[in-house]
């Protein structure tokens, strides 16, 4: 059943200073709708540190702790523990970080926090590069992408780090992927994460960056949807590190080229490159399906 009271609650003001078509702002809008006003955000250096905005253009209605780049997991740990000391158990502490602050510089603090099973939700809105400093590669940048530090023929030759599996390996209560193109699924996951209070919850949100991916701003949602429809970004959940649930099975899937060819960052790729990437996507999907087959959640709908 849909909770209409929550759906009407907007955590963002209209208007923000993000780029046109920014997927990360779409992610925040739906996340805050699901989480409600008793939420605190811990935001390290990332696009959202800017999008949150200077007064009076601030775009958020909830309190924000804008922390140092590498510290979202640590700052959120301290905040949560201190709120508990004060008897405030209602407030949901949410660390909200980009892929650089999650996959790279913030990974140590995140890994430390979830190993302690800190009671917060960690959200990585993933736009697959350091967009705030002008599109440098991160360990979330996919194979084949050109960025300003993987220029020309030096486009990125390594795979994207699989962050959800890394978090699931910490055996946290809840790790999930979500996409801005599937808002119902995304909000359900945020509500589920909030309800699983008591331990670390991680949500990996795929968030198109029209500026860095070089797609027209109106293609924001469509591009994110194609990532799911091509099986490049599967929507799934992992509970307690071993109970896998696939939320959507695009069958038959679209070729991965349909997703990549609309983006300027992949413009240089050849047919052979696309074949190699399709093989990687098929392989990743096959691996995920095997895990679901072996460790599927019997309670899943």
């Amino acid at each position, binding site marked *: 059943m849909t909770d209409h009271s929550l759906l009407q609650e907007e955590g963002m003001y209209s208007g923000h200073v993000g780029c046109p078509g920014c997927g990360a702002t779409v992610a925040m809008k739906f996340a805050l709708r699901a989480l409600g006003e008793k939420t605190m955000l811990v935001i390290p*250096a990332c696009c959202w*540190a800017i999008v949150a905005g200077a007064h009076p253009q601030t775009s958020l209605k909830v309190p924000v702790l*804008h922390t*140092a*780049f*590498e510290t979202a997991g640590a700052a959120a740990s301290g905040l949560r523990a201190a709120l508990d000391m004060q008897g405030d158990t209602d407030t949901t502490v949410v660390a909200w970080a980009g892929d*650089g602050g999650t*996959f*790279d*510089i913030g*990974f140590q603090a995140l890994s430390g926090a979830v190993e302690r099973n800190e009671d917060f939700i960690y959200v990585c809105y993933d736009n697959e590069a*350091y967009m705030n*400093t*002008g599109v*440098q*590669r991160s*360990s979330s940048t996919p194979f084949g992408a050109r960025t*300003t*530090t*993987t*220029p*020309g023929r*030096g486009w990125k030759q390594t795979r994207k780090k699989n962050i959800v599996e890394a978090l699931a390996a910490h055996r946290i209560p809840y790790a999930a992927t979500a996409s801005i193109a599937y808002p119902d699924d995304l909000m359900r996951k945020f509500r589920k994460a909030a309800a699983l209070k008591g331990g670390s919850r991680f949500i990996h949100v795929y968030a198109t960056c029209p500026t860095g991916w070089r797609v027209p701003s109106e293609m924001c949602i469509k591009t994110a949807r194609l990532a799911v429809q091509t099986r490049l970004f599967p929507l799934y959940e992992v509970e307690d590190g071993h109970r896998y649930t696939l939320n959507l099975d695009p069958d038959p899937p679209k070729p991965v080229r349909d997703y990549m060819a609309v983006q300027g960052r992949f413009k240089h790729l050849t047919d052979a490159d696309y074949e190699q990437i399709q093989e990687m996507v098929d392989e990743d999907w096959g691996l995920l399906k095997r895990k679901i087959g072996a460790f599927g959640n019997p309670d899943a709908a």
Partner: protein
Amino acid sequence: MTDGNIKFVQGNEACVEAALYAGLDFFAGYPITPSTEVAEHMSYRLPQIGGKFIQMEDEISSICAIIGASLTGHKVMTATSGPGFSLMQEGLGYAIMAEIPCVIVNVMRGGPSTGLPTAPSQGDVYQARWGAHGDHAIIALTASNHQDVFSITVDAFNMAETYRTPVILLFDEVIGHMRERLTIPEPGEIPVVGRLRTSVKAGIDYHPYLPREDGRLPMSDFGGQHRYNVTGLVHDMWGFPSNNPSVVHGLLRHLVDKIKNNVDTITRYKEYYLEDARTILISYGSSARSALHIVENRRARGERLGLLELQTIWPFPYGLVEEKCEKARHIVVVEMNMGQVLRAVKRAVHHPERVVLANRIDGVFITPTDIKNILRLIQGKGV
């Protein structure tokens, strides 16, 4: 010189070209405003010359990667800004202790913390000096225009090799991002100091930390002919850890003296109209551009104003400042912080009460008008 040597570039790019001129072939870094263009330009330029560019996962890794690469015999650099420079401090201390040549670029922005990522500041002067813990000496250089960025960057590599030490390049956001004409010198025009390698043959005992008579320590490419130990612990001449008091004392003295005893060789500066100057401006980095503008304007009107532009900040050239300021009635330190070089200047001169500060700390580039206002105050004219 050909037209191809003339470029219109950002200071960050000038620094990259100079590093390549000095023989750099390894760079590890991490994006941070306002230094990111150094990494971006390196990612484009290094593969062209068969060098290695690595984008690391943070600044801690960046400095540690260049330390490893330097040991194996490469000329190395990393680039960052305030928050990243803070993260690099442990690695910096390690490079000081293990005596590993490397260059660290800090394109200063407003601080502390995240501060003002896109605005200029010169607030890291003391962090460069004392950011790493423990007694140590450090070399920190700066420049006020792109041609000087080029030559001082080559100097930084030369000093890193000569003294087996990390050298910090303290640029600022204005220098890093401003575009200006740069003429790339022909090879050989600026001398380049190569790695001093030991003449000790393979199989013969090599002492990585035994200074020659001139104080220099020949290196052996790590993993090459000689097996030796490198550590951040206090170590003896073999590089093995030691807490023998005389070894501890000797090492600390060596680390400080090798730089302290060569202040005159390390000092780089420029002077304008100092011979008869009654009022001397002391400045560095982008602030020196505004200071020079004022000095040239006032000289045209016959006022006895001069400029001492420091390019070596650390070790601080106390002797030079004392000598140049001997006859000055007023000394105005022009910088974008709350008086970091001012403090050193006051310690250098005979009459510290004659030293005043012209500064801005609001994220806005200091203008000639800002300096003019201070000069009016000194002259009793009011603002």
